[in-house]
């Protein structure tokens, strides 16, 4: 699956609900798979009593990884050339996360067709939690 530039228009978007009700277990799964066992993401007692947060919260990288779905479902994981985000708000258990990707530019570089994308993931209040950009390889059509 490689998308052809002729099938894309600037400003075209795709949206996906990543999590309807982010569970603590999902966050624990991320800790287990990634190797980031920072207790801020799984240990309620430590996080409240020592670190002073209202509850445990998701790894930024869980949000970034999940947000990647809107890019890879459309363009194919093997075609991602760069992907970068800023973590702008914390993600808490129970959050609903919805990601949107927008095509911002189509260009050619060294005989490769590329698309520039912007991505934003918002929570149930519409507040952004992750914002970023990506570059993906397209087919030569």
């Amino acid at each position: 699956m490689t998308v052809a530039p002729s099938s894309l228009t600037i400003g075209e978007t795709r949206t996906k609900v990543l999590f309807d009700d982010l569970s603590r277990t999902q966050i624990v799964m991320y800790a287990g798979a990634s190797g980031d066992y920072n207790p801020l993401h799984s240990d309620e007692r430590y996080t409240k009593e020592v670190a002073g947060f209202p509850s445990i919260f998701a790894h930024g990288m869980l949000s970034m990884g999940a947000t990647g779905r809107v890019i890879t479902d459309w363009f194919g994981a093997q075609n991602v050339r760069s992907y970068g985000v800023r973590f702008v708000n914390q993600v808490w258990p129970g959050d609903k996360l919805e990601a949107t990707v927008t095509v911002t530019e189509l260009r050619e570089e060294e005989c490769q067709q590329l698309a520039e994308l912007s991505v934003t993931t918002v929570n149930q209040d519409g507040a952004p939690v992750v914002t970023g950009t990506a570059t993906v390889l397209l087919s030569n059509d």
Partner: protein
Amino acid sequence: MALEAFPVEATHIMMFARAIGDPNPAYVDPTSDEAIAAGGIVAPPTFPMAGMQFEPANPFLPKAGEPWFGSGREATGRPPKESDGSGVQGGLHAEQSFTYVTPLRPGMVLHAVRREGETWTKESRRGGTLTFSEMYTDYLDENDELVVTARMLSVIPSVNPTEGS
């Protein structure tokens, strides 16, 4: 060297894909249309982070016989030092980016080299002085060919940003 050997394994990719809530068959099923289009199973773009599993110095991996800063009998097994400022040990993640040469695939054995980038401070209303620091990690294959470069920006607040907010 930051990471001597990071074997990219199919089961680990499957667990990672589940952990980010991504059911894309390209990550798990080599016979799927998605995997065939990708030239075989690939790892999700953020999978290089899972190299932490293989890093002896990973501060967020409890080690046998050593005190852990999470809770057990007490709320923490290793109280934060004065130098840790807000009690947020190791800082918070502000930005992350990856630049890929090739996707990660099962069978690769990567190693990584880390280099520090810039460090700067910024005053914040809620977090006091924020100290930002950049870290670059190059992941290389068995032939020392670059596979992906990661940039991490961390921030350590001088006071806990949750207090009084």
